[in-house]
């Protein structure tokens, strides 16, 4: 692999890949454009494009990395996101680098056969496979709130996790419980990492977790990680220090995917800086594609790359289609970002994460109002009792006597 990395995508490698791409109706140009997007997303310069192309070219379709995809409590949106292509596309080619026989929602097998196949595959690849988790971990009723094939999901997760080389938590649900754990979180949902940290006591037995939050995950986010692994080349080296090799941040997210906000790369940013906002849908400002900040856009505090990655085969993304970002790449994003159309979370109302509560501006205004009225009342009363004005205070001498009496000694620091 190393030689190929140094080469500009060598023809021998490329021909095979391009033939297969052509069979899917994808031109060489499409492919390079795709690699260019990846390079941009990963924060690499465009000179890395040939490198990416070569790495993908060599590994494509090889089923290089054994992988298992399991589903917890989720809407299957992440699976759909991966399968979003209406026709096979470049992304599929890269995803083929993973050998992924077990993916409940889309695989042919079902029932006992499917379970058995998964088991056997895991046993055969013990310690080598990558476990991809979609969906929240639900702990209610000892995990029995979600049972698959007569076992609680928590058990399945723990079992597969213990044999995995690494785990990729795809989508917000797997990362921290996602919308499933939104208030009042009746199923006691949490994320894969939190669950494993609490339930596999020996940290050495816990495989590293890469978090890819988002609701849903973008296929390109998974692909970027795969390409990252390909470019590094050596899986053992990566597993030794995944934080460094995969460039993970404090929340185990690859920095190149989650290092800047939606807002940083938003195409409406110019309008934001100029203070040109949409204040209601349906007006001229909206027609002019003004910034959606005043409509509650959570772009400024959401770390994700949607404007570059885009959705549905590069078609569009939330803000481009006129919708404020609702911050689905955030942690505990539903509780944190509702009301979606307002700038900030409401406060009060029982648990702070709950619905209802007081708009924060209103709360500020009420407290501020009470203080102003209080000061006013105090001022009036002070005026009436001659406490206001220059002649309203004790003389130093009198005070000093008072202090001295209090201290039962001569003193106080007043002047003579």
């Amino acid at each position, binding site marked *: 692999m190393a030689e190929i990395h140094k080469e500009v995508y060598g023809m021998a490698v490329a021909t095979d890949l391009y033939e297969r791409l052509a069979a899917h109706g994808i031109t060489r140009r499409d492919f390079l454009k795709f690699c260019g997007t990846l390079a941009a997303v990963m924060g690499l310069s465009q000179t890395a494009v040939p490198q990416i192309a070569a790495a993908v070219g060599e590994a494509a379709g090889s089923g290089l990395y054994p992988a298992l995809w399991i589903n917890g409590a989720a809407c299957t949106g992440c699976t759909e996101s991966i399968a979003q292509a209406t026709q096979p596309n470049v992304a599929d080619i890269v995803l083929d680098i993973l050998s992924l026989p077990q993916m409940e929602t889309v695989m042919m097998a079902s029932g006992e056969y499917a379970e058995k196949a998964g088991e056997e595959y895991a046993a055969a690849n013990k310690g080598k496979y990558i476990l991809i988790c979609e969906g929240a971990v639900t702990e209610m009723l000892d995990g029995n709130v979600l049972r698959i094939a007569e076992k609680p999901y928590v058990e399945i997760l723990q079992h597969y996790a213990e044999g995995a080389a690494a785990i990729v938590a795809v989508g917000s649900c797997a990362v921290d419980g996602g919308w499933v754990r939104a208030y009042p979180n009746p199923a006691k949902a949490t994320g894969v990492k939190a669950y494993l940290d609490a339930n596999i006591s020996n940290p050495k037995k816990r495989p590293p977790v890469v978090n890819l939050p988002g609701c849903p995950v973008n296929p390109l986010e998974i692909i970027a990680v795969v390409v990252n692994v390909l470019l590094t080349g050596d899986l053992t080296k990566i597993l030794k220090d995944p934080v460094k090799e995969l460039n993970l941040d404090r929340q185990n997210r690859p920095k190149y995917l989650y290092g800047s906000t939606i807002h940083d790369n938003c195409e409406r940013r110019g309008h934001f*800086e100029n*203070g040109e906002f949409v204040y209601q849908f349906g007006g001229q400002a909206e027609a002019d594609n003004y910034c959606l900040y005043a409509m509650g856009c959570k772009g400024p505090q959401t770390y994700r790359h949607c404007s570059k990655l885009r959705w549905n085969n590069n078609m569009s993304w939330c803000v481009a289609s006129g919708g404020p970002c609702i911050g689905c790449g955030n942690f505990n994003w539903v509780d944190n970002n509702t009301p979606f159309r307002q700038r900030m979370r409401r406060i009060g109302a029982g648990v702070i994460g709950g619905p209802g509560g007081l708009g924060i501006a209103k709360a500020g205004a009420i407290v501020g109002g009470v203080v102003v009225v209080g000061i006013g009342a105090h001022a009036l009363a002070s005026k009436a009792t001659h*406490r206001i004005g220059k002649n309203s205070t004790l003389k130093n001498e009198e005070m000093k006597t008072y202090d001295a009496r209090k201290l039962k000694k001569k003193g106080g620091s*007043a002047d003579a």
Partner: protein
Amino acid sequence: MHKPLKEMHPPVFIVTHWINAVSMLILIMSGLYIHFPAFSGFMGAARGVHVFFGIVIFLNCLVRIVLAFFVKDATTMGTREKELDIRNWLPQKENRHQFFPMLRWYLFMKKDYPISAKYATMQKLAYIMIAVMIIAISYTGFCLWGVTNQLAIFAVGNNLVSGLFGFGGGGSLMPMRVIHYCLMWVLIIISLIHIYIATMHGFVAWRMIFLYKEDPDAGEHVDAPAQA
């Protein structure tokens, strides 16, 4: 002849107070605009200015605290007798007992105004609070600022509050935003009360702290509380 007042606030503290007052005003206005831009205009500028003065007010606060250990000022109003500012700032043995009498005075339960030190004891506590508040707001601000929020010291805070307030860990920024915003209101309220109390007894304190002027009318009643 009026009594000496210039020693109340040495020039360097007049400067730090000016910086504080101006920064606070700009921070509140730009902050409110950033929170919700009620009219179109200048978001880019508002954000730039907000961050700039955020750093200014934080550094100013640190400088002011350090100076308190080196600069001397008047022990009380109307004297040239001085001592280290930090002694005047913290509740002193000689006047700690004034706390409750002072509270009673403000609540109309006491007729005489019980102050003999530079600041009243309650006032001293309030001023300590202000320094703490400025540091706290600055901290929450740096937790939100993209340039600094992945630094360990701020990431810890984000994790802590997002966990604490039931928003789940992971360092979501929303709880910190809410706290940053609420602290601003607390500071506004403290400032309103501060201005009110400082003005209760006329504008002597204003002339001292803003203009470094001794009040020509303050001759007979210099015992007005020495608000800063």
